[in-house]
């Protein structure tokens, strides 16, 4: 389970491009708590900085979602607010204005 690390820092959360395929690009992100985010995109023009930004915002939304005391760790996240936030992040992915 050792993804290829393209960045120079060994223990960074952002793992970079995991492997390119013909139609998709797959990016990985590993948190300190061993939670894995996998981003699969069909957009072959995507920039590294955009993906990092995406993961940062997604991580923030994730942390808020699991802070919910009614969320059971390990189970699927059912929060609508989380779904909306992710939707917003996804929609603004790749646009040059980053917040």
């Amino acid at each position, binding site marked *: 389970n050792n993804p290829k690390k393209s960045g120079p820092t060994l*223990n960074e959360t952002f793992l970079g491009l995991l492997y390119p395929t013909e139609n998709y690009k797959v990016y990985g992100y590993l948190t300190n708590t*061993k939670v894995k985010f996998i981003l699969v995109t069909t957009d072959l023009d995507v920039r590294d900085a955009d993906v990092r930004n995406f993961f940062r915002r997604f991580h*923030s939304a994730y942390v808020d979602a699991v802070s919910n005391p009614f969320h059971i760790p390990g189970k699927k996240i059912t929060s609508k607010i989380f779904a909306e936030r992710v939707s917003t992040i996804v929609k603004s992915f790749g646009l040059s204005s980053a917040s």
Partner: protein
Amino acid sequence: MVREVSESCVESLMAEIVSSYCRGIYANKPELAAPRIESIGFQVGHRLTERYTMDRPRFTDHLEAIKFICKDFWSELFKKQIDNLKTNHRGTFVLQDNRFRWLAHMSVDPSVETSGSIQDPSAMAENKAAQAIGLHLYFPCGIIRGALSNLGIPCAVSADISNLPACSFVIRIKA
């Protein structure tokens, strides 16, 4: 946008948790109160680690994780760092806080020494005081255990209050 809660509210809530579980919910089975409180702490610690490790690179080993608990994690929770860290290099760590914030407002009666005349009752009273304080430490022990568990380090955490107002947390990492 950061929401804040007054610290006195948090302290009152902590005290009430102990009181409710020990004297109310589990009044007939007091030995069940401690694990229950500790597991609430576990859930809290678990979630807090998720939040406080967000912008950090991953830890390389156990010592790094423990140091995170001593510095950043403790600062977020108690506005100070752990004062002293000891280890036997074989999986046991002792974290000493010389003035544990959540015990700071509790009356600790050191004058319950043996007066010389009646040995037993005063020793019992001192034991009761220590016991009562001990009840309030299950929650923070749980927090530490939950935090480390989410970092991939299963362990057992206990508190040592032989040296009040200093409080030591003993972490034993499971092999």
